[in-house]
């Protein structure tokens, strides 16, 4: 019995990690800028498509027709030479193999630019406007972003292979001294979980130990007062928006081997992430992370056949059900502060 529970627990981790990462970014933006960002899922999606672009570039190839050689069908043989391999040799081959993690290098600057441009261009004009209008404008931006991606990459999902070395499963049960083969877990999901843990840890450390982070935290607690100290909080908040975009983008890149990206992946995750944020407590960073993992794991348990036999369809609605119950029983969420967004 323990192994079954433990396995479901593990299964919930990777999805929970993705929820936690997106919810973390949403909360950063909400906590600092006070903006309800419905375009955050689109940032996750844009990050995922960075991986698609990188892979496309890395696998560009020249096709030459060699008239001296014949294919098995008797036609002249097409020789495909991947450019990267042609130029970089073995290192090129490694790059192609590791294209997904390698994409992070592109994702960070791209998402930073996108985030800052969004904040400076549009979001900053909405600080003082009602939350309903913030929701509406970011909702519109999300539609624009996903339609642009759709018109470039088409409507279908584009699978991204994971590096060959990380394709198998890890026998976690054996690591823990249990019988071999009882608890196995795909390595990439483990990688994703560890990656998420590192990113979350880095964000918290950044906010906790740097002067920049200290000012931002103070600003989250009381914007007016920090403004009175003569600190230019707005510029820091712009950077925070960029940072949130980077976190969302990285979450997206690394998730591509688990779920092939398509243009509406952002919207799918956004709805869930908002539920996560609300469950965790609007404006609470630890709440966002805890609720992300909690809901991921609950979802995993709800999709067990035994549970579904007990409560049919529970896997489809568990997250929303939890959200409804939490909102009604603990209106401020698990870790929420009083008075946030209650007007």
């Amino acid at each position, binding site marked *: 019995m323990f192994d079954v529970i433990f396995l479901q627990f593990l299964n919930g981790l990777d999805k929970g990690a993705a929820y936690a990462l997106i919810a973390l970014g949403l909360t950063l933006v909400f906590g600092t800028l006070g903006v309800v960002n419905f375009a955050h899922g689109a940032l996750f999606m844009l990050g995922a498509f960075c991986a698609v672009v990188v892979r496309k570039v890395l696998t560009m190839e020249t096709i030459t027709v060699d008239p001296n050689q014949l294919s098995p069908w008797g036609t002249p043989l097409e020789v495909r030479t991947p450019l990267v391999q042609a130029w970089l040799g073995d290192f090129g081959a490694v790059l192609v193999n590791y294209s997904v993690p390698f994409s992070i290098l592109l994702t960070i600057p791209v998402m930073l630019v996108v985030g800052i441009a969004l904040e400076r261009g*549009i979001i900053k004009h909405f600080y003082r406007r009602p939350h309903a209008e913030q929701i509406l404008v970011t*909702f*519109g931006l999300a539609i624009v972003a996903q339609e642009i991606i*759709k018109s470039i990459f088409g409507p279908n999902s584009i699978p991204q292979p994971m590096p060959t070395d990380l394709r198998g499963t890890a026998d976690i049960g054996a690591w823990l001294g249990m019988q071999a083969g009882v608890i196995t877990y795909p390595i990439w999901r483990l990688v994703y979980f560890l990656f998420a843990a590192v990113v979350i840890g880095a964000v918290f450390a950044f906010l906790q130990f740097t002067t920049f982070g200290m000012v931002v935290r103070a600003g989250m607690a009381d914007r007016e007062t920090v403004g009175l100290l003569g600190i230019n909080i707005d510029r820091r908040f712009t950077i925070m928006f960029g940072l949130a975009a980077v976190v969302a983008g990285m979450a997206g890149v690394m998730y591509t081997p688990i779920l092939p990206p398509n243009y509406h992946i952002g919207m799918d995750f956004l709805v869930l992430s908002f539920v996560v944020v609300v469950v965790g407590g609007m404006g609470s960073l630890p709440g966002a992370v805890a609720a992300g993992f909690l809901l991921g794991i609950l979802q995993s348990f709800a999709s067990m056949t035994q549970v579904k036999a007990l409560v049919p369809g529970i896997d*489809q609605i568990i997250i929303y059900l939890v959200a*409804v119950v939490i*909102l009604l029983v603990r209106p401020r969420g698990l870790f929420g502060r009083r008075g946030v*967004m209650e*007007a």
Partner: protein
Amino acid sequence: MAAMPRNDLLLFAGFTLAVLTMPIWLAPFGAAYPDLLQRFMIFGIFAVGFNILFGLTGYLSFGHAAFFGVGSYAAVWSFKLLSLDVIPAMIFAIIVSGLFALVIGYISLRRSGIYFSILTLAFAQMSYNMAYSVLTPITNGETGLQLTQSDPRHLDSALAATVVGQPIPTLLGQSLGGFSGFYFCAGFLIIAFFLAQRITGSPFGMMLKGIKTNQTRMHYTGFNTKPYTLAAFVISGMYAGLAGALLAVTDPLAGAERMQWTASGEVVLMTILGGAGTLVGPVIGAWLIKYFENIFSAINDGILRRFFDFLPDGVDSAMVTVASKFVGEGWFLTLGLVFVIIVIFLPGGIMEGVRRIAHLFNRAPKAPGKANPQPQPAE
């Protein structure tokens, strides 16, 4: 009716006239065919109802498609179990969606602001997911609920009415194809608009506006605001149910995608585009979105090439390439952009734009001193 003020009466008369003559004045725009006109009516009703909640009370629901979908399912079930006549189906759909809205509204309205939006979204997504999974016996899952020859139709069989061929909804034995279907829906839109107008101009409507503007003051003024918002929620849920039922009349195949949150988003777009809180705005928003959806998604590269034909070679193909991103499949991109621009520059929607322009014209002749900008010393 007697108590209706003159301006309201004029607005109502004008609206009725405009709706009933749509087959005439929309002909030059290529939109005067029954199928599209019916959708104008249906989504007009949906938007008018949504506006009673969002426009008047300020509570932004992101789950209204759930009531629309429930209305559709209820109407189809009425066709299947009771009668192919549309009247019982309408009544049944309005009651069922109203009850559904009562339950969801009662729970969701315990919170306000973004929490309310998320709660409604969560309920709608739950309904959508369940319609696809556990509720398949009621919704027929992905296939969608449809009418069959073998449906019981207890009311019809009691009256010994028999159906030959594929069953289709009727009104007192008359089929509702073509323009009769349009006039049927138009009648409902006119009634829906009339009721919305009465509600907006009533003390109840003023209380809803009071809740939107300052809920704290409403409490200290002695109002229990909860039943007011709940009433608005249920009314707008019933409007959505009616619209969903009408869609089931024109197309008796109810699918779960009518409940998806993108459908909820669409009615939000319509209301904002036209002007939340105004009477005519949401209807205009619904018409424009449905019209351009129809026009833009039908445009293909061939049409674009003919359109840009007058340009020199090279330039025209470049224009076609660029423009093709915004039409056909890319229609939603255009919609998203227009929506963002509206929210940024004209949060009051088209109606605010109309007001601003009207203001400009009214003012110019009366106060020439203000219309001519004089060099003023900086304040």
